[in-house]
């Protein structure tokens, strides 16, 4: 069966520090991978999505970046965090272009102080 792991679950980081959130998917191959941020009153904002290794689409201008070094690994990064980066980050995947259901990771709470 397919599973998705996301870590760390919670994170408190000072302003200006780097960030790395990791996500891995098991039990499937060539998934589409997504990073979302959930903020109060703003729903789920799509940040990045990837259809394959090294292929990243960015949806919003920001100081975050994403990378997909392996087929089932998706990493969200920042070189210097801002206070406004605080939020709940969700990794998700679907089965390629024909996959109609999205599966979410457990989420990562990031607090920038």
């Amino acid at each position, binding site marked *: 069966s397919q599973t998705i792991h996301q870590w760390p679950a919670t994170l408190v980081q000072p302003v200006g520090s780097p960030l790395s959130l990791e996500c891995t998917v098991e039990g499937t191959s060539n998934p*589409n991978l*997504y990073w*979302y941020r959930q903020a109060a*009153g*703003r*729903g*789920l*904002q*799509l940040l990045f*999505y990837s*259809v394959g290794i090294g292929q990243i*689409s960015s949806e919003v201008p920001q100081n975050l970046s994403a990378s997909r070094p392996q087929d089932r690994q998706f990493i969200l990064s920042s070189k210097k965090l801002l206070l406004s980066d605080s939020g709940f980050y969700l990794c*998700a995947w*679907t089965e390629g*272009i024909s996959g*109609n*259901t*999205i599966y*979410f990771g*457990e*989420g990562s709470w990031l607090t920038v102080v």
Partner: protein
Amino acid sequence: AQSVSQHNHHVILSEAASLELGCNYSYGGTVNLFWYVQYPGQHLQLLLKYFSGDPLVKGIKGFEAEFIKSKFSFNLRKPSVQWSDTAEYFCAVRSNNDMRFGAGTRLTVKP
């Protein structure tokens, strides 16, 4: 840019009232449509989804949604809400590799 709009930010209803939450999208091509629910302190759960066929889709817990292609809408309905339906509801639209969510509608059901 592609977008998903949920017009109601916060809806307050009494138990047994009927519910309709609006969702509109701006994709022009083939879409798959979803409604997710997030109960307080919990993760997103799939309520229902539309891929093709009958535009009236029935989901879990008595919810249903109707896809109206000409209106680019996928409204969520429930004839009689319960206190336990208090949650946040998200509409989502998938087109090709892109999956986007609306801003969410917070539903409060008063006992």
